[in-house]
């Protein structure tokens, strides 16, 4: 199995405080991993760090260049543009496959010409998830992908995700909802929470030593 993403001893910080530390896992082709943990533990921070939006405090992230596609809380849609225009833009930027398959799979065909500001929250979310399919990237980093989706759309998304895994893709998903993916493994972040003692050592002496290293 090809390893799509390998994380070793990762520590991430939010607002200057360590949130998660000592996190190690690897994700191989066809594998989905669900991140769990109470609110505020740092699921989003881990995903943003892996996506390269913020630097890791320590640890290594190994992934082939440009293999990660990130989908955060916001869908990145332009309300003045139509569904097709929004999707085509991301397809052009990422140089991924055409948008037809994505429109079809996420059930957006009938909405194709509608401007994004006229979509419901769930429809916007479907469009945001369809964006992942046009990036052509193997590893999806999903932050609460099912927010505002109804059960039918969750099932639709689960089948899209399963196809993606079947084609050798991988996914790291932060969610509390059961996606209907029994094969997905669960990674609970609670044991990796940066403790007060470790947080202290992370804050002062480590920084001091690093400054004079």
């Amino acid at each position, binding site marked *: 199995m090809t390893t799509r993403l390998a994380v070793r001893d990762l520590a991430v910080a939010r607002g200057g405080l360590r949130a998660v530390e000592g996190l190690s896992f690897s994700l191989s082709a066809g594998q989905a991993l669900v991140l769990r943990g109470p609110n505020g533990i740092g699921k989003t921070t881990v995903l*943003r760090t892996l*996506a*390269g*939006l*913020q*630097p890791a405090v320590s640890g290594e992230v190994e992934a082939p260049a*440009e293999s*990660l*596609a*990130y989908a*955060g*809380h*916001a*869908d*990145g*849609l*332009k*309300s*003045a*543009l139509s569904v097709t*225009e929004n999707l*085509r*833009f*991301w397809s*052009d*930027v*990422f*140089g991924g496959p055409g948008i037809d398959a994505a429109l079809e799979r996420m059930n957006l065909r009938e909405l194709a010409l509608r401007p994004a500001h006229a979509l419901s929250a769930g429809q916007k979310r479907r469009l945001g998830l369809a*964006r992942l399919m046009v990036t052509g990237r193997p590893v999806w980093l999903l932050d609460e992908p099912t927010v505002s989706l109804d059960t039918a759309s969750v099932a639709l998304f689960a089948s899209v995700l399963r196809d993606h895994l079947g084609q050798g893709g991988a996914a790291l998903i932060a969610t509390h909802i059961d996606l209907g993916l029994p094969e997905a493994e669960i990674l609970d972040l609670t044991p990796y929470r940066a403790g007060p003692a470790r947080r202290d050592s992370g804050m002062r002496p480590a920084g001091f030593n690093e400054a004079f290293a």
Partner: protein
Amino acid sequence: MKALLMRDLRLATRAGGGFGLALAFFLIVCTLVPFGVGPEGGQLSRIAPGILWVGALLACLLSLDRIFALDFEDGSLDLLATAPLPLEGAVAIKALAHWLTTGLPLVIFAPVLGVLLHLPSPAYPWLLASLALGTPALSMLGAFGAAVTVGLRRGGLLMSLLVLPLYVPTLIFGAEAVRRGASGADPVTSLVFLAAITLGVLALVPFASAAALRVNLR
């Protein structure tokens, strides 16, 4: 890159995109000045180069905060930062789109407003040349200001305070070129300095802006 440019142009020209606002602002400023200063032609033609340049500069400032703020709010900036497009390139393209929708119309309409301000006729080619050379720097420096203040509440005001001092060199040499053109002196030296400032800004500022964006996205 072309996709990003086309998207930004399309967004600017659609409803709510703000295309033409800067132009209307420029028009109003240049019309108000004769009311304030008085209709005496000699006086107006003396201050016309400065008024035209300050007007263009303020008009440019109006739409700057939209460069990144809207993309930041709807999450597309995060996605752009993870796209294969280098962030420096994205910044340059967004500044180019801003110039095409704001700076270029200002350049084209400035001669018409020159008539309102009694700008002496020999100055017109130099007005066009100096604005065409100077406004790209305004857009690019503005993109830097927008990148630094992205995500801040009421960032637009702070951005104006940050960006306006950076506009000073462009303003000095731009207005000086027009003034020299109006008085029949040789404006080429000022234009060369203006072009040098613009080229320097275009070469260096995308990197500074991209660095600022990366920090703000954390």
